[in-house]
């Protein structure tokens, strides 16, 4: 399941060749990228270090500006072909992470490294070259497609953005291939359809086709199935897995639904109020959740087993406002295990079991 190993490398090498074919004229600064990126194929596809995003609030006149700490410093790595899951409730900041990584928004601090090159502060043409490496699939399958563009237009657009205008036949071939890979068959029937003529699942597949057409090494899927009917979800998830099989594309899956994450992800990170609270390999996390929050989340997942006993884990209260986050451990206001000392500082991720990190003072101290 991992992208490590010979298959992953083959893909990366592949990616390099394919990347150079797409529209050379625009890629002046990209040559460096190629060299650097490719050289580090054995390294991580993505390295995020201490990523921060604060939003400034419109202040009263003459008072100090206040901030919303959407992301308060997260770090993680993704290896080639790895499928990482990020789970959390609405408002925890997972979408923001996604948007920062693809640079739809600018981070307030921290580093984002693709194939070793920090793109956190990149702008303009250089940034555009990097975009080839990372693509994104959005939550709302309809809103992510331009309602006035046909499937053919939407999927071919990324190629045009990188200068393939002069080779329309080549583009056509690539589009057809991408749609095939995305499972939209027969392709010819779909080419001239508008988004409103497609079902939700089909639209998402179009988005996926658009995302893979540039042969990125990394895709972020932001709640890709939450707006789809349950019966269709499996298909989409299967598709993501098969993409990893064929092309070795690494994936960051963002979701609030553990069952989805469980289906595809190699490992799962749990997020709360802009901070990571637990991180482990999928099965490990689901079987042995340590952090109180994780436990609560998992409890809420309906399990089709009438015999299973429910462990009551009361979390009280609502998610606090991200403007005035609680001092110290942000979860302490709802944590049943919170004590006074929890307010002192934000806990770091500490490895409690092999490959299983938890951010909790009391857990670190072995108290729970």
């Amino acid at each position, binding site marked *: 399941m991992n992208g490590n190993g010979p298959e992953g490398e083959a893909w990366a090498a592949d990616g390099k060749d394919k990347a150079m074919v797409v529209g050379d004229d625009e890629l002046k600064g990209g040559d460096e990228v190629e060299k650097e990126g490719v050289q580090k194929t054995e390294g991580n596809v993505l390295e995020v270090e201490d990523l921060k995003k604060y939003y400034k609030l419109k202040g009263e006149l003459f008072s100090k500006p206040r901030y919303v700490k959407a992301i308060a410093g997260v770090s993680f790595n993704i290896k080639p072909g790895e499928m990482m899951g990020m789970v959390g409730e609405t408002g925890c900041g997972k979408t923001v992470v996604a948007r920062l990584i693809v640079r739809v928004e600018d981070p307030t601090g921290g580093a984002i490294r693709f194939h070793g090159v920090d793109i956190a502060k990149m702008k303009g043409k250089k940034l555009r070259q990097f975009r080839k490496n990372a693509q994104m699939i959005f939550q709302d399958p309809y809103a992510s497609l331009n309602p006035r563009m046909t499937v053919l237009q939407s999927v071919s657009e990324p190629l045009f953005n*990188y200068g393939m205008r002069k080779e*329309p036949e080549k583009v056509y071939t690539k589009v057809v291939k991408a749609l095939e890979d995305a499972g939209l068959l027969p392709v010819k029937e779909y080419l*001239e359809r508008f988004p409103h003529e497609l079902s939700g699942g089909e639209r998402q597949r179009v988005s996926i086709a658009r995302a893979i057409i540039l042969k990125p090494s990394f895709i972020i899927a932001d709640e890709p199935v939450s*707006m789809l009917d349950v019966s269709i979800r499996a298909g989409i998830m299967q598709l993501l897995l098969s993409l990893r099989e064929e092309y070795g594309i690494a994936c960051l899956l963002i979701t609030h639904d553990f069952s989805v994450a469980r289906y595809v992800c190699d490992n799962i990170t749990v997020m709360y109020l802009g901070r990571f609270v637990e991180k482990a390999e999928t099965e490990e996390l689901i079987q042995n959740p340590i952090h109180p929050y994780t436990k609560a989340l998992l409890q809420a997942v309906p399990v089709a087993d009438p015999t299973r006993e429910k462990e009551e884990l009361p979390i009280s209260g609502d998610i606090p406002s991200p403007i005035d986050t609680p001092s110290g451990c942000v979860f302490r206001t709802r944590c049943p295990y919170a004590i006074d000392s929890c307010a002192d500082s934000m806990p770091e991720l500490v490895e409690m079991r092999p490959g299983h990190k938890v951010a909790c003072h009391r857990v670190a101290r072995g108290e729970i």
Partner: protein
Amino acid sequence: MEEKSQMAEYEEAEPPRSFSHLAQEDDGTTSVFSWKRTFARHKKQVLAGWKIYRKSRIGMAGMIIMLSFVFMAVFAPFLTPYDPDFIAPAEDVFNADYISIPIPEDAAGGMAAESWSVPMGSSGSTEALDTITVYSREGHAVQFSVDLIAAEGGGVGIDIPSSESYDIPVGIDVMLPVLFKNEMFFAIGNEALHELSYDTFTTSRATELGFEPTYYSNLWNRWSLTNTEGQLFFAMANETILSIYSRTPDTSMGMSTVKVFFDKVNISSYAETADDVIIADPIIINLADEENGSMVVVPTDGGVAAFELNISYSGGLFNTTDNVGLGDMIWYISYEDIGDQYSRDVEPALEQPIAISKENPSEKEGKNRIIFASRDGYLYSIFRSNGTLEWSTTIASTQIRSPETMGIYPTYRGVIIVTGMTEPGVGFITIVDPENGLIEGGGTWIFTPDSAVIGRPEYVASIPAYIFASQEGTIYILEETMELRATFSIPGGTETTTSYVGNIVNNIGSYQGNYFAVVTSDGKLYAQSITGTYVAPLPPGTYPSGNTYHLGTDVFGHDILTNLLYATRTELVIGIVAAVLSAVLGTIVGIMAGYYGGWIDSVLMRLTDIFLTLPMLVVALLFAAVLGPSILNIIIIIAIFSWAGVARVIRAQTLTLKTRCFIDAAKVSGASDTTIIFRHLAPNVLPLTFLYMVFIVSAAIITEAILAFLGMGDQTAVTWGMMLQYLKISGNTLTAPWWLLPPGIAITMFSLSFYMMGRAFDEVINPRLRSR
């Protein structure tokens, strides 16, 4: 849970379940770019929109009305017989009144009033028409006193309150009023010339002529620096005798020194004219202040002869005339000579073959030629001083074919009037430049009345117009360009056995520009206003000229229906151009503000707010005062005030679109800002732009109308607003509903149609408005 976003909701009005009918026929191309594909794509979208639009009754009604306007604009020339410059002819627009008064029977001593003459008018000292006199051969004269009054419906009318009858010497053929300090009548007949007093018609002097004249010249009333009282010169002739009659004024330097001179020659006594017969009136050619050079020119059946007119003065303090007499023949040119020079047969015009090139008695200039007209329409120029030929031209043209020239007459204007008959027996009248003999107006100043021109046409400098009568009994008034200004029929026409038509315009004084033609017919005197009262704007109907004005005319005589139709073109241009301009500008601003946000947004939005809250009309008037009125400026002004509304809406739409992730998706896919704006934002914003464009057309028309009405419109353009403005200026607002209603209705319907179309289109893009 599937949350539907707004757009999803509305474009899914019919959720697609089966796709087979939507599947595109693959055209086999393996290219991303394909016109067939692009066309099919757009067709699909347009048809989908049309299906929804069709359902709206308002929309369909609006579209139908709009299309009718387009039809009107395109087919305007076919929908109206008049072109846009058409002005109703004078006969429709002038109301010419006449009054008639019977010539009292007892004036003729109970005899049949058959031989009443051409009436003469005189104005006495006030220059307003004073009296009208008619006389008969039987020895009677009737003098009508004339009052000028205000006529019904405006203008000046004539009233003839009384008349007096007088006896005059029997057998008078011709009577001429002599004015300017010598108020008298010359009465010629019975081989004598009587001077009749103006008031009492009593003979104050009679001179025996020794022959019976049949031709009479112009009356030269000569005055000069020293001789300001006016010495009269008058030539008379019959077939063989040419005579000159001259009379000094009544008083000169306080002394009564009337001297009468009379001389005559017999042309048979000259070799050149030995066998000739005089055929028409002689001309006295006078050169004021020069004793030498005056002559009398006379046409014979063989040629044109010029005789010296000798005037001798004794100088000194009292400049008195010693003698006036006819001297030798100065020159003679025969028709044969003329014919030889041009290899033609030359015969003189039937009634009056010669004319001096310019009529003004006191000017020397321009009188160096005598124009001779031959019967076949050729004109010849003869140098006055020596009788040699200068040039020859013809007046024959496509309009005057085979001319049979009747007469030529000089005018004060310096052009020559030529009258005659043309095939097929219809009269013509035209103007010719005496310098070169060519028909004025590049050969186009020709008029053909209903029949032959009778008598001598007159030129009235102060109207200015040409006036003559036709054999059928119609009085014509022509512009200087020979275009018809007005016609009037003589009541009774030519059915009566004897009718004399007189145009006495020279002697009829004007009363603030009103002229009258006075006519005797069948024992009655008719005084017809020539200039008439202006009655435009005309209500709808058919008028004397035969024209029908379905919606009437405006004050200038423009047919309202025609103006209405042609204005549609201008309105369409104004509306659409202004709308496109504002929409484009507003969309650009809106997208920029919405997409880039930040300070760009703030600045642009401030700007938009300012333009939105500007009281539009108030500032627009100022703009118009600065820029000047013209169609382009009005379009610009409308655009300046309309873009802000569009910008605001487009910005809102852009902001909404920005929240939809396809914009982000495009960014992630590597699209540059320009790509996002043009490929993603613009097409999704354009329906809204188009919607607002339609509304702006509607508003633009009304704005233009208001600006025009307030006086800031383009004077040279025809628009409905200008029509209403002219209505206001001419003061006819309350009196001409046929002028008031159509433009306003047109504006309303035009604006309404676009507004309705906009509303329907709004339902297409914004499904929340559709009926449930």
